[in-house]
């Protein structure tokens, strides 16, 4: 009896010492259940075929990149609803500037990153200097961006050169480049959040902005930087998507529901919407859950409407699995 609890405690202490976010237990559960269902009702590819594992990750790359930025702003108790249209603008602008020519690639990348930085800067400035609720601010900028992009482009625009598609489809040995990029971005995000002064300040701003300010953190600047980085990750996701599609279309971002999905994955990953709590690896787990669900549903041939219903239910259940024990009332 005592040994059992002791070993249980030991396991817990071990798990805590290597900081496995609880989302990974859900991830493994969903993977096992999905794989089993696949064995019983379909051809059992999920357990047999390692390529499908890679595919799960490749499917999650764009969402994963945005979710890294979203995690940063949510940690700072902010939110960004404008990422979907930032993705669209990037996709369209980059393929418009490239026009299928290699020489135009650097300037296209420069242009879209400047646009992204500007969007993030504006978001951050409005939120911090005008004291506007981030939800409303980024909803507003999202509407503005959607207006601009739908007024100027209505269909596939421009073309990316063949070489640029390496970003989306290339492989280094057996590993797709896209996965490496995702890992790099997540690592970068983790480093920023967990290993730099900026990260600690961001936690402080998210947890209690007044305390952070009184202890000498330039809260506004921290939040503005977080928003700029968030928009930059959206730009990167847009570049990745356009390299896969070959040409940019204005509906890329909203059709992928990158705004709400990135928020959902971040929260599933254990980052609190109220800020000040969370981490990058949890978000990666949340993103992989979305990827696995997508793959499992495809394998089982679930009809698309049921898929939507199940996705909604699983988001709520996943988040409920840790909020359930909290003593604080949700809002």
């Amino acid at each position: 009896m005592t040994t059992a609890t002791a070993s249980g405690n030991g396991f817990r202490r071990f798990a805590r010492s290597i900081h496995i976010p609880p989302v990974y237990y859900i991830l493994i559960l969903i993977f096992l259940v999905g794989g089993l269902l696949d064995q019983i009702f379909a051809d059992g590819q999920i357990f047999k075929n390692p390529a499908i594992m890679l595919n799960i990750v490749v499917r999650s790359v764009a969402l994963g990149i945005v979710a890294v930025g979203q995690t940063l702003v949510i940690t700072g108790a902010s939110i960004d609803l404008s990422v979907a249209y930032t993705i669209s603008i990037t996709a369209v602008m980059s393929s418009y500037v490239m026009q299928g020519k290699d020489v135009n690639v650097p300037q296209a990348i420069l242009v879209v990153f400047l646009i992204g930085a500007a969007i993030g800067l504006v978001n951050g400035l409005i939120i911090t200097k005008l004291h506007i609720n981030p939800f409303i601010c980024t909803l507003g900028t999202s509407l503005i961006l959607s207006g601009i992009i739908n007024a100027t482009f209505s269909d596939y625009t421009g073309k990316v050169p063949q070489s640029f598609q390496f970003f989306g489809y290339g492989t280094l040995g057996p590993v797709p480049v896209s996965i490496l990029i995702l890992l790099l971005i997540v690592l970068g995000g983790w480093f920023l959040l967990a290993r730099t002064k900026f990260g600690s300040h961001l936690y402080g701003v998210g947890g209690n902005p007044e305390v952070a300010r009184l202890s000498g953190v330039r809260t506004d600047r921290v939040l503005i930087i977080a928003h700029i980085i968030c928009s930059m990750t959206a730009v990167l996701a847009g570049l990745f998507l356009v390299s896969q599609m070959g040409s940019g279309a204005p509906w890329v971002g909203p059709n992928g529901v990158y705004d709400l999905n990135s928020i959902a994955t971040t929260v599933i990953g254990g980052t609190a919407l109220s800020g000040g709590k969370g981490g990058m690896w949890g978000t990666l787990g949340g993103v992989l859950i979305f990827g696995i669900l997508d793959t499992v549903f495809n394998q089982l041939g679930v009809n698309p409407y049921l898929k939507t219903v199940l996705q909604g239910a699983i988001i709520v259940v996943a988040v409920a699995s840790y909020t359930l024990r909290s003593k604080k009332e949700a809002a």
Partner: protein
Amino acid sequence: MTTSTLTPQTGSSNILGSIWAWIKKIPPVYPVFLIIFITLGILNHSKYQTLPGIMTFLRTAAPMAVIAIGEMMVIALGGFDLSVGAIVTFVVLVSSKLLANDPANAFPDIMIVLGFGVIIGLVNGLVVSYLKVPSFIATLGMMLVVRGGALGYVGGAPQGYLTDNWTAFGRSYIEKVPLFGRVPYALIVLIVFTIIAYFLFHRTHYGKQVLAIGDNVRASQLSGVRVKLVRVITFIICSVFAIIGGIMIGGVGGVNMTVGTGVEMQAIAACVVGGILLGGGKGNVFNAIFGAFTLQAIINLLNLMGLPKPYTDAVQGLLIIGAVAYAGITSMRKR
């Protein structure tokens, strides 16, 4: 001596001052709405300065106003309801199948969708209260469930048309009303639900408790407010109002797969333009209604100026930010 000569003066300035204070207390949404509406009247006299024209405007603005009232209550509680857009889609799609092109089915259909509204709100409220999932995520999940369920039920395409007696709530008028000419049903529905919401929110303990919870959950809990019950009731009210709004929107727009897209954001925007701050603790039924009216008037104004839809979105975005910035700056000055 000096005081006696001064008193009448201060008295008169007090009256002026109190009038000025009263004017200053009027939320900015009312003058803003008035200015936009008068501009509309100047640009198109026959459509916006005649009684039938105003009635037509109220008919188009009423559905969003009803939805905004429900959303306002959830916002006052400190939460969000992102599922109202999916509820509108649900009402229209499910009704297109349930009606089976027979006017006799209209009443049972409305009862059934209202029942679903209660269930949706109940689940939202229970998930937020008992599973402690933030309402943003809970209602986001519900949005997917409701939309997927509705699309799955009709098989991905509308299954018929909406009968005339069903669409009457959004589309038709009562003819030959003395004094007013023709009055849209939508306006009557709006008035009825405004009265209900007004009594619930401004005249009962329930309304005060909603505001208390939005202001400080812990404090209201300690002072004996049944937080969970109030939450569940509020989410049910919001969903039911969204169902009513959906019936009216369906009446105007007809069967359409994308009918509810973005409605949740518009409802939140309407509340915000009406001066209701996100985060809870503040709310007013009439401000929410006029927030919705103002948004509709802005859309009409931009249409009248011949701007295509994308620009309308962009200007709407700018105005939302502007409205909140204005409210923020004035409230800061008070402090």
